[in-house]
């Protein structure tokens, strides 16, 4: 990452709507079964080592993720990059690719390189070294498809941005218990489940919304 710049407006954190609620407080309750505890212990405490991305690609993914889901409010941000690397190393995809598109790993390699090329074309510097607002401008251009097609062989910039990059990053962020607590999701619920299902009804083990 670059030297810290004055934070632009877009790095503000959302309001804490469910402050005091932590899904993990239910760890030893009947809402968490042994299998779920095992899976979450792994996610929380065992981060996979880098196996697929190059060091440079890793830094690039770190920088992109920090803009797609900025976490200025967290002392310990939810890790994103290790899980992308893990997915690519295991070649574990969604189970389909678009006609004419390269296989998943190749799509990531090409897409990441193209985003870096876009950053250099616009700002004469690699993406990871840019200030956050220049990074956002680069990502907006990719999102809108305002790119040099020569950098995107066999890929649509917009499709890569939305369906591959953003979908993956959002999916990893919202698979973390801290994100569940943030939005007031009940989290794991086996075997206890829920009792009160109606409008404005809440079981004692659910999040309480700030008034």
């Amino acid at each position: 990452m670059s030297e810290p710049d004055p934070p632009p407006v877009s790095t503000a954190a959302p309001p804490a709507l469910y402050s005091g609620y932590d899904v993990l407080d239910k760890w030893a309750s009947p809402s968490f079964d042994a299998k779920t505890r095992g899976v979450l212990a792994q996610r929380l405490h065992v981060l996979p080592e880098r196996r697929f991305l190059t060091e440079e690609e890793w830094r690039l993914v770190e920088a992109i993720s920090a803009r797609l889901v900025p976490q200025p409010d967290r002392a310990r941000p939810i890790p994103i990059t290790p899980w992308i690397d893990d997915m690519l190393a295991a070649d574990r995809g969604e189970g389909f690719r678009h006609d004419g598109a390269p296989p998943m790993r190749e799509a990531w390699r090409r897409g990441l390189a193209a985003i870096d090329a876009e950053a250099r074309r616009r700002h004469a510097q690699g993406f990871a070294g840019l200030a956050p607002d220049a990074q956002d401008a680069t990502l907006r251009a990719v999102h809108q498809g305002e790119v040099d097609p020569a950098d995107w062989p066999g890929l649509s910039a917009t499709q890569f941005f939305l369906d591959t990059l953003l979908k993956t990053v959002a999916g990893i962020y919202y698979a973390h218990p801290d994100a569940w607590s943030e939005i007031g999701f009940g989290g794991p619920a086996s075997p206890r489940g829920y009792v009160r299902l109606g409008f404005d009804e809440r079981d004692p083990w659910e999040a309480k919304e700030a008034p």
Partner: protein
Amino acid sequence: MTAEAPRAKDGRAPDVFKSGGWLPMREYPDAEAVDFAIVGAGAGGATLAAKLAKAGFSVVVFEAGPFWRPLDDFASDELEQQKLYWTDDRITGGDDPIALGGNNSGRGVGGSTVHFSMISLRFRPEWFKCRTKLGYGFDWPVSYEEMAPYYAEAEQALSVSGPVRYPWGPSRGRYPYRPHEVNASGLVLARGAEKLGIKWASTPLATVSAPRGESPPCVYRGFCNFGYSTNAKQSALVVWAPHAVRAGAEIRDLAMVGRIEMTAQGRASGVHYHREGEWHFQKAKNVVVAGYAIETPRLLLNSACPQFPNGLANSSGLVGTHLTTHAGPGVWGTFEEEIRWYKGPPNMAVTEHWNYCDEGKDFHGAYAFMSQGPLPRAWAQTLAATRGLWGEALRTEMLKYNHTAGFVPVAETEPRSQNRVELADDSDQYGLRIPRVIFSYSENDKRLQRHSVRFMSEMLDAAGGRDLWTNDDTSHIMGTCRMGGDPAASVVNAGGRSWDIPNLWVCDGSLFPTTGGVNPSLTIQALACRIGDRIKALARRGEL
């Protein structure tokens, strides 16, 4: 790929109801020509296996995925449970490429019923004769009257929990189990329906509302689309697979069938399957393909041989064609009340209004729609990819999660020859050519979806939803080996039997000539029950 080892072997299969438990399982040697080799252990294959084994036939079921024990293997976690989906390499194309993987396929005993939404609805009777009676699609070679007892059989087998009086369709007996209490997400649909003056119902669901055998009642934990860890869900894994094993069928897990072998006389002689790193060959007197609407035509096409150069059962040229899906354009809105739609099965209220009302339609076909309950990971992906939200905007929008509700239809698409499954040149991990799925909406499909989005928006608004927005999606795959009465215009007959190869059968959603506006699983299971009875009758007459 994770290293997986088969469980169903050495004379035993997993007991889905017991942690670490086993059931004794009969096994058949490869060299013994079993009465039926069934490819796929989902809604079609597992159901038929149970029926045939009970009738005394020797049966081996081949399932490419694992034999799960939900109590041990299923976490309350979206990411972990992605393992339930078929994620082998596939290509999706056409003007409106269908999302595959988790959207419409399962890998493992039980198939996609392990992660389905449990919605168990019958077809509208006229859909079986939709060309004759409604002027579109293709007639089925069976009538509602012929299907009704098999619907009842499937509903009993699944202990479907539903209303005492279901408001649509011919009069019917009550559902086996009482309806579930409707959650707030479903009450939004109810409120909207009442404002607009149309009927709604508590959705008939295949998750039990009271204890049933070794299944405890549903606890409303809300992870239904990610596998049911408590076994309340009446999936094929929990219902039909144990019946099949107890009746003497063998289920071979982690066994991928790559090719059906043919004799010089034009009969199937068995299947080549890959298990524990090697190819094997199981002899069989009959082969049933039940891999769902992509893998079934893929196997028939991949089994091409000099005698059948265009693939098996394909003299009509129809194998792989007329693929249909259900379009599912969603309408979403924000509510003042807390909805907390993560609680309970995701689709607790339904209206079939536009399945049964034909007035005012500017399209052929039908749709039902249901209340929704996506979990955070899936919901964030929908929000991000549909609305292009990222950065702080995404995190802020996600804070509305507990105040959001919406509707998604099960919207019929027309069967058209250009929508199809074909073989691509690339190969998968077994060396088998992978499928390419080609799909485009017709003008009629688009009109139908526009109608549904208009109507659902009006209803969500009437229910108090604000800041409405929409997205596009699909679910289910059907129609690629359709059944019919004419060998030139169908792949199999009304009993699922190939017109070309008398000991080759199809038994899954591939059979559907026309799709209707309801989720297909109950109809697949009813068809499998019927095909099982047909086979028994043929055997009695010496016509097998």
